[in-house]
């Protein structure tokens, strides 16, 4: 099984004036491709720090964080930007769509920064909007959408670059319970398709729907518990395997994925 992330002795210190804050005190974990993980913990536990590291927004002070073949710890700013554009899908609590862009343009943004925005890619963005149920609102601006709809756009955007994993930071934090349920259903659906999802939350009923809980406390892993077995041998496993292949091969377009699937089936 290919790992989406491998963290070894991950340390992150912040130097504030004279004082050093030990946000992460050397944690290690693997997240295999296709996993659905909830990262939990009270505020100050190092949850946000871990999220920033997993999102390649920051570098660890010590230890290694391996994404595919790259160690995030040794990448420079441009390389971090590129890896975010190509390998990470972000979903934020407050959606974080760009106000002056419409739905389909918002979905396109990571591809634009990959420098990979052709006719096929644009079509895929429309397909993704369709998949999250916004196929009839492609030209709407974020301000014309409800919170749930905006979060759907954000989820579509997080998938557009075929990331190693989707990193969701309190994705239901701003939503009512009904809409939250719909969004979590969507995550379930993505998980079914073989996507790797890392979800940061402090709500137990959210974490219960995932397959694994990692609980942080004072910069250390307090608990790493698997709730459901990692999907293996299920009907969608071929897609999962192919997704892994695809990541290893570095292929990016949906067409490649399809080709691989056909190859896998035959």
């Amino acid at each position, binding site marked *: 099984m290919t790992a989406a992330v491998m963290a070894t002795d991950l340390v992150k210190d912040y130097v504030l004036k004279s004082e050093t804050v030990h946000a992460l005190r050397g944690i290690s974990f693997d997240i295999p491709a296709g996993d659905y993980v909830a990262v939990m913990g009270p505020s100050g536990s190092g949850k946000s720090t871990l999220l920033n590291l997993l999102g390649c927004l920051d570098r660890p002070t010590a230890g290694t964080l391996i994404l595919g073949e790259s160690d995030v710890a040794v990448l420079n700013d441009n390389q971090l*930007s590129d*890896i975010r*554009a190509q390998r990470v899908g972000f979903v934020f609590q407050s959606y*974080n769509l760009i106000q002056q862009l419409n739905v389909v343009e918002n979905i396109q943004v990571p591809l634009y920064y990959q420098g990979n925005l052709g006719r096929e890619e644009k079509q895929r963005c429309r397909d993704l909007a369709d998949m999250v149920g916004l196929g009839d609102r492609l030209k709407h601006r974020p301000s014309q959408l409800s919170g749930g709809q905006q979060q759907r756009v954000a989820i579509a955007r997080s998938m557009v670059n075929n990331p190693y994993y989707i990193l969701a930071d309190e994705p239901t934090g701003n939503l009512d319970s009904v809409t939250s349920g719909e969004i979590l259903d969507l995550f379930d659906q993505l998980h079914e398709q073989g996507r790797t999802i890392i979800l940061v939350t402090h709500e137990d009923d959210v974490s219960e729907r995932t397959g694994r809980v990692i609980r942080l406390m004072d910069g250390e892993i307090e608990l790493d518990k698997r709730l459901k077995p990692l999907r293996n041998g299920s009907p969608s496993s071929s897609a999962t395997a192919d997704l892994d292949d695809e990541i290893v091969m570095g292929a990016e377009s949906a067409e490649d994925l399809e080709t691989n699937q056909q190859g896998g089936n035959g």
Partner: protein
Amino acid sequence: MGMLASLWRTMMLGTKSLLLHPMRSGLTVLGIFIGVASVIWLLAIGEGISLEAQKQIASLGARNIIVRTVKPPSEVLGDARVAMYGLRHDEYDMLVDTIPQIARAVPIREVKRMIRFGPNEVDGRLVGSTPDYFQATKLEVDRGRILNAADVEKRKDFCVLSKEVAQMLFPYQDPIGRRVLLPENNDFYEVVGVLKHRTATAAIGGSFSAQDFTKDIYIPLTTMNQRLGRTVWTRRGGTFEGEEVQLNQITLRVHRTEDVIPASQLIKDALRVHDDKMDVDTVVPLELLEQAKTTRMMFMVFMGLIAAVSLLVGGIGIMNIMLATVTERTREIGIRRALGARRSKIISQFLVETITLSIIGGIVGVLAGLTCPWFITRGRDLLETVLEEQMEALPASVTNMVPTIVPISIPIAFGISVLVGVVFGIYPAIRAARMDPIEALRHE
């Protein structure tokens, strides 16, 4: 191609962002707009005045050297009953005989005289000269003929009128063959010709006013000397004042343009006796032309400085707004960074936005600049009807000026506006790109 497409996308994105705040963007553009338009306007007006001045100087004749009598200050003149000063006939002969470059010389004597025909009167200027005068001053005959050598030889009592004098004296009649009266001398002169209208030339002889030909009546110099005598008496404040001026002006023409400067030097040397008396002034149109060109250059530099200041102000305005925009859009910057934008992409995004603003300002400014001739002409027409007297007091080079768009000013103004966008956009853009994506995402 990919570069272009990406640039185009960035530009479209910039335009979209700018359209989110149309009022703010409009006000930001205003600074550049005014700067660019003022560059084009100022240069067009400057060019117009300069061309008009050059035209007037050129109408004096580039190969001419004009030696003119000026009335010296009273302390030099003394308090003799008859003031004697100015150029003399023997000096005229000396110049013609001794300076080889001279191709043609025209002696001129001018006296202010009343001219009358029937009930119509004109306060005119009686000009005595030779037939060459008409060619030397580019006067063209409209009807009849100009004076000829025989008229001068035989001291005929013939005269030629300027178009304006003819119109005033003979509103309903044909002047040719009629006799006009100079009541101060009780003399009659027969009209043999009427001239075409002649626009005023540049100021010469130390006066600010242009040489005006509209009040002139021309007679042979020989006739004038015979009839008026040497001394001209004018009544001023109850007493008579006598003035003896043999020649008011000598217009000399040299063979070639290269001869102008050496000949003018010889002439100045020959007339050195007048230096102390301060009663002769030598005007070299060619020198004036050179001076006018130097003045034009200085004017251009001066205007350029003014325009640079206004563009600087516009640029600071742009920078101010862009800094505010960057702060306001901190979150958007964070999102873009999180989604994989390199720092350079953020820089180019904001830089393109600033440049788009300044390009829009530049284009609108150029368009507004092109309206300059239209507005100036209309504006002057309006002023001439409303403030007639004040407008007449202005020099001819201003009132007759036609604003001329300097073609080079358009690309220069436009280029500067883009440059302003780059220079004043780079700092806000770098500030945007330097932001820590984590901090930026947290920004409310």
